[in-house]
């Protein structure tokens, strides 16, 4: 009996020790989907974070003044399997059992929303490089930060881009737009951004159809028939990767044509280009980042990432994650302490001046979300793509209207 008691105590103490904080490292929780629906973007984001951690550790770690030395970063990684409940649970586990200093997590708005309730509860800073809905940052939380600008701004920039094509005479004015939006805050805010631009700039285009669809749909023929029936000139959808592929396949099969097509932030994704081939040509996307941005730090990141991950950065995914980790490192250094509230306060004032993101300076806004501009990228034949908007970052001309064949 005594032996049993001693054994239980020993296991309990050992268990506590395992989860306990080490004085010689900075534990950072990383919760990303590596399996499930969001696996691919989640993997790219994880790679972005791990590259930043590697570079930080290669340079000796992060200087923590109160410890009087540089400490290495230790990643505590969890795969949330693209499941909202699991995602929130794993962030909670990282913040409690693992006693991490901060968590980077939440690819996709849906998963980010689930995670976002934990940071203030456990007073642990949380940075999401993959959830963009402004709704997450409008609840008065003080420990939540995001390196993606809002999807409302994505929609607004899409409107701006279409307006610029009309001003340039490539598209006629007063065109009809049909919207198909995923049934999430991401989709809703994207639609609101487009409507807002349209209302502020009358005479350019009008939204004649707007409908939400469910994530992970298997058949969009009814929705597309309604889009067809709306007689719109431009088709704008906000979709995740799998829905983009399924919807575009059915779009082509149903013989539809619009002068311009977009699937929100999806477009140049490699898996989609493999799955759809030439059907992705001339689709345009609003992206938070592109490896074609003409900044020296982007070129360096591209090379470093390829050497680290063994493949090119796909779409925008790894860059905001890489910058999230670098912003966190800067905040820890500025706080000079591993005190989470001090790090939270430092994050509010962080200014990452060699950011990869458009504008090159990353700072968090009042709500914790960055307010950086978007780039519009258009797919071109032969697997090429160009930044086509804004003009000062453009690497090619926008093709509008989309050629019929």
């Amino acid at each position, binding site marked *: 009996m005594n032996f049993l008691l001693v054994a239980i105590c020993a296991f309990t103490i050992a268990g506590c020790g395992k989860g306990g904080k080490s004085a010689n490292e900075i534990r950072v929780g990383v919760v990303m989907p590596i399996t499930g629906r969001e696996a691919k973007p989640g993997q790219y984001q994880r790679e972005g974070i791990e590259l930043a951690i590697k570079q930080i550790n290669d340079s000796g770690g992060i200087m923590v003044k109160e410890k009087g030395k540089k400490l290495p970063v230790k990643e505590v990684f969890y795969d949330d399997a693209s499941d909202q409940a699991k995602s929130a649970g794993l962030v909670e586990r990282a913040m409690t059992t693992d006693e991490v200093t901060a968590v980077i997590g939440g690819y996709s708005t849906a998963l980010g929303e689930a995670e976002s309730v934990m940071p203030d509860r456990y007073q642990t800073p949380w940075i999401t490089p993959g959830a963009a809905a402004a709704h997450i940052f409008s609840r008065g939380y003080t420990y939540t930060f995001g390196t993606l600008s809002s999807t409302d701004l994505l929609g607004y920039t899409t409107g701006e881009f279409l307006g610029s094509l009309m001003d340039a005479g490539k598209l006629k004015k007063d065109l009809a737009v049909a919207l198909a939006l995923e049934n999430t805050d991401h989709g809703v805010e994207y639609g609101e951004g487009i409507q807002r631009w349209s209302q502020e700039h009358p005479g350019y285009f009008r939204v004649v159809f707007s409908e939400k669809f469910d994530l992970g749909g298997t*058949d969009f023929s009814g929705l597309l028939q309604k889009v067809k029936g709306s007689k719109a000139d431009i088709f704008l959808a906000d979709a995740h*990767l799998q829905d983009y592929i399924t919807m575009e396949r059915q779009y082509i099969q149903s013989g539809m044509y619009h002068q311009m097509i977009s699937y929100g932030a999806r477009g140049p994704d490699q898996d989609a280009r493999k799955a759809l081939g030439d059907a992705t040509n001339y689709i345009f996307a609003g992206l938070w980042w592109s490896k074609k941005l003409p900044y020296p730090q982007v070129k360096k990141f591209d090379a470093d990432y390829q050497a680290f991950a063994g493949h090119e950065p796909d779409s925008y995914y790894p860059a905001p994650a890489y910058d999230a980790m670098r912003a966190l490192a800067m905040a820890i250094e500025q706080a000079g302490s591993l005190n989470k509230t001090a790090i939270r306060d430092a994050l509010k004032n962080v200014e990452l001046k060699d950011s990869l993101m458009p504008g090159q300076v990353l700072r968090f806004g009042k709500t914790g979300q960055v307010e950086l501009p978007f780039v519009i990228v258009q797919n071109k034949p032969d697997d090429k793509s160009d930044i086509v908007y804004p003009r000062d970052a453009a690497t090619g001309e926008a093709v509008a209207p989309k050629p019929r064949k």
Partner: protein
Amino acid sequence: MNIVDFLNLLVAAVLLAGVYAAMSVGMTIIYGVLKIVNLAHAGFLMLGAYFVYELYTRFNVDPLLGVIFAFPVFFLIGAGIYWLLVRRIPRSDQPTLPSLLLLFGLWLVLQNLGYLIWGNGDHAILTPRTFSTFQIGPIIFPTVRLVVFGAAVASLAGLEFALHRTWFGRAIRALMQNSDAGRIAGVNVDRTAQIAFGIGIAFAGAAGGLLAMMYSFTPDFGGSFLLRAFVIIVLGGLESFAGVAVGALILALVETFSILVIPSGYQPAISFSLLVLALVILPDGVAGLWKKRQRLA
């Protein structure tokens, strides 16, 4: 909505019914004979998709031919899994918890096996057939969907023929109706159940191959089809193959046309509502209703 739009939607719904029927029939066979709800069905849909994908990308085998190859391969896999795992589950006239847990566990194993082999990227089969269509007047027929529909109809017809015209088919039907009576009549229950499980998995693998011609897929593929397969087999009657076809058609028509009055964001709710309605109003499905009418006549 004009008549052309209506006809285009009707064509889309009928072709979708073919897809739904193809993916549900394997589950019906297994339930009918073994009274097991095959929760691993989605895993075999996924494996079937990758099987056809591998044949196409490595050996340039036409996906349709790949689907035909999938039948014997997945039959053997199914028969092997029966021998290794399923036969150890205690027999019952109702689905049991051990069978549900075993097959759910198997699904998770298959998913993780998929991640191990193919990673987490989206895969897809892109052939000249993928985007080709043909038109009869203003009505558009996507070739891939037509091919899938044809394959589904051929599979169902072949199965109906085998079940009614062969001794083995009669043995399966006997087990579906009353396994004890079948045993007394000389049916080797264990062997028949093994072959039925193999056929069910063969249909699942082939259906996965057909779906791969239409959708992109990851190791998670199949989950969203599983709910629809439940709805279809409950609607059709749990042990009826003709019922599967009717159930698939009802679901496809309701899903497609309801979008005209309900936003498509509520499409999954339509499937759930149909499932609940069928369980409450038609617990034996359309096939049960048909049998009842025949008895009354």
